[in-house]
């Protein structure tokens, strides 16, 4: 059977013949557009769908008749798909895809908002944007931690554990000291503790990194759960009542409609997350450290030959990643909630998904995290208006999107070449 020409394991679909990737995606988009036009259009009611620029039904709003909106946006998505099918220059692929997908989502929203119970036919955009960023925060920190680790060649499946440990130690030491800053520092140290274990075992003892990550997640769940029951549950006032960062309002910027109240009246974690994306992006692609990090992640032997200390750099980056994720965990306990058992609840794995979906780049990870945060927020909103769409299916969206992404159905994703391979000198 080795004589057959069919390759046994297709490495990745190669663009060939009529059905290029653009056309395939276009076909899918046409299907979505048709679905939106016909189904959403039929199900939408004649009510006005109002998208208010505030936190409630009052104030200025963008309004559109539900049926009209659903059909018009559906047709736009259809048109975008058709344009792709007709053969589109490659440089227009991303913009047209974006237009098509956004139109599809808008068509969906027109249907949902117009079909909501009377009196609830509005979507407060400020709430949605704010919620999106809030829900995306741990994902942004987590996926940045992933970027730092995996760009230097260490697979970080332990993001969940790092977030959890950060949340826990932030809450614990913040409560004991009574200072948010001590809490923040402790959170960074807590996250680094987990990633130090990851670094030592995967770099020094060459333990499989995925295995180690999984085990460390369980370890973090165990340790924090154990200490939570022993300390925090018995004496919550002393051990689990951390002070919280207040919201900082940035003058001028906070007056921008919708974005202002949502983005520039946030707490330190929001600003820190956006700043970190920028810093890590610049550092990774514009500095000596970044070049070395990327080379260590792609071809450690070559980097070593050129005098880069491969293992040292990996240790440093992995531990830094832990600190970043730890701070992300504290964005829960030092700003929103008190610590509860296993409070991260899978966010670490969505962060991993965001990292992969964002193709191992800081900005990509940010966008993916925001997309996932939006899906999460939308699920909450649809639940509130008694939508027929079950929230659980929207909650699946990040995971489904990632599977499609790694399967090469939506573009192709490629990890750093040496990701997960321990480097053994010699």
């Amino acid at each position, binding site marked *: *059977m*080795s004589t057959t020409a069919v390759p*046994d*394991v*297709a490495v*990745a*679909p190669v663009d060939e013949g009529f059905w290029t990737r653009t056309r395939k995606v276009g076909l899918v988009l046409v299907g979505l557009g048709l679905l939106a036009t016909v189904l959403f259009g039929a199900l939408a009611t004649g009510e006005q769908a109002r998208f208010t620029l505030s936190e409630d039904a009052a104030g200025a709003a963008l309004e559109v008749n539900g049926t009209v909106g659903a059909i018009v946006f559906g047709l736009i998505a259809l048109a975008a798909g058709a344009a792709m099918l007709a053969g589109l220059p490659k440089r227009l692929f991303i913009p047209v895809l974006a237009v098509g997908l956004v139109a599809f989502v808008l068509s969906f929203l027109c249907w949902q908002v117009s079909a909501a119970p009377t009196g609830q036919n509005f979507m407060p955009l400020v709430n949605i944007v704010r919620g999106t960023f809030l829900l995306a925060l741990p994902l942004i920190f987590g996926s940045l931690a992933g970027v730092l680790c995996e760009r230097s*060649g260490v*697979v970080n*499946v332990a993001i969940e554990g790092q977030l959890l440990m950060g949340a826990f130690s932030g809450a614990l030491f913040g409560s004991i000291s009574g200072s948010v800053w001590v809490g923040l520092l402790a959170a960074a140290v807590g996250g680094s503790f987990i990633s130090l*274990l990851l670094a030592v*075992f995967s770099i020094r*003892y*060459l*333990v*499989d*990194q*995925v*295995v*180690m990550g*999984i*085990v*460390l*997640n*369980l*370890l973090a*769940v*165990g*340790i924090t*759960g*154990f*200490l*939570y*029951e*022993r*300390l925090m549950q018995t*004496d919550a006032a002393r051990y689990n009542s951390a002070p919280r960062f207040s919201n900082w309002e940035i003058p001028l910027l906070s007056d921008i409609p919708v974005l202002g109240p949502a983005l520039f009246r946030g707490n330190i974690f929001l600003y820190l997350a956006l700043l970190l994306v920028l810093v890590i992006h610049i550092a990774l692609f514009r500095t000596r450290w970044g070049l070395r990090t990327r080379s260590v992640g792609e071809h450690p032997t070559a980097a070593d030959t050129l005098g880069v200390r491969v293992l040292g750099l990996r240790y440093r980056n992995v531990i830094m990643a832990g600190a970043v994720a730890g701070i992300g965990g504290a964005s829960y306990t030092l700003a929103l909630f008190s610590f509860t*058992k296993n409070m991260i609840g899978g966010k670490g*794995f*969505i962060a*991993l*998904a965001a990292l*992969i979906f964002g193709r191992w780049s800081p900005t990509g990870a940010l966008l993916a995290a925001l997309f996932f945060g939006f899906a999460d927020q939308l699920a909450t909103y649809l639940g509130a208006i008694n939508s027929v769409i*079950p929230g*659980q*299916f929207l*909650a*699946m969206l990040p*995971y*489904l999107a*990632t*599977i499609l992404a*790694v*399967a*090469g159905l939506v573009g192709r994703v490629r*990890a750093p070449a040496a*990701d*997960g*391979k*321990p480097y053994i000198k010699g």
Partner: protein
Amino acid sequence: MSDPNAQPGSPDKEPASEDQAARTALGSTERAEAATTPGGPGPRPTLGRLFLENLWAANTFTVTLLSLVLAMIVGAILMIISDPEVLATYSYITARPSDAINASWTLVSEAYANLFKGSVFDPAANSFNSALSPISETLTYTAPLVFTGLSVALAFRGGLFNIGAQGQATMGVILAALAGFLLPLPPGLHLLVAVLAGAIGGAIWGFIPGILKARTGAHEVINTIMLNYIAVYFLTWLIVQNGVQDPNRTDAISRPVDASAQLPRLFGDGLRAHAGIILAVLATWAVAWLLNRSTLGFELRAVGANPDAARTAGMSVTRTYVLIMVFAGALAGFGGSQMVLGTTAAALTPLVVAQIGFDGILVALLGRVKPWGVALAALLFGALQAGGNRMQSYSGISLELVTVLQALIVIFIAAPALVKAIFQLRAARAARLQTSLAKGW
């Protein structure tokens, strides 16, 4: 990591003896070392001497035992630092060290004694049933872990890392429960159908990452992680649907499985051990046979060792990957089905599968990805969980400590070099570890 890496490393060199097997598990390099060790003529050492030498050498058994000891030491430290009263005695340790030592010893020894009494034997037992009760509890927890452990181990041997046992068990439990309360079938047949439904549920959930891996090269680790969560959300959605949700309840719980689809109990109604453990032993035997004696098992190990070489040799890597994942999924689905068909629960709840999938990963690693090793590892983990329950209710030590112990044991197992260094084991065999499975995304 020693086990998974060493294991798929040499399909054609299936260890002939237990001793060899142990050495392979610790790293392939040591095989080479053992081979180059000058043997040949000369006086043969006595059996007793060999035993003593090997006892402190870094072999599988010693490393496992010492890992357990290390984990328990860390666990003891956690217990002490989280107990304010005991911790208070440390504030004057220089003045009266006996206080601190006594308080710590009492705390730790009582907790671990309860761990033992809850899982193996309670000397205070006064009837046959209560004497058997700890063992029964241990077996109840062990049975599903054997299945998920085998699922992960089987995939490992084929070079795939199945993190999706959790999701596969979830789909298994869903289909088993649906078959258990929706189908009106006679006893016996009903049980059979429900168990098979569980296996099919898991197999479907294993098929997806398998076919994606085979067709597009999408990494199974990523896909199985994602599928775990999709399965959980599907479960939470399904439970509250009409016809599934218990009509008498408003919270998220399904109708209970019919009595005709329940696994029979082994030791009478008073004890929880059920026939799942017998199925687990059979499954272990079947997987061992599949891996070591069948053509498919050979292909599986060959693909795990080197897919390119296997393809060159005329094996279909695509087919093997899909089959591995389907089998692994079916095993995990079997394990999941026991969570509603056994005595743990009778109805679906969002947390019905607990952690059996993730624990299965630990069990597979602890069992050195060998079927019978997995069964023994599952027994240890089952015992820890059974004992953990008693430790929680009698000593007030949170059940989470068991999770910590389990994770620590595996961490230490995974790095035998560390254990070796801590205990100054004879430098003999656990040389540098191969990392053939470490291939990243």
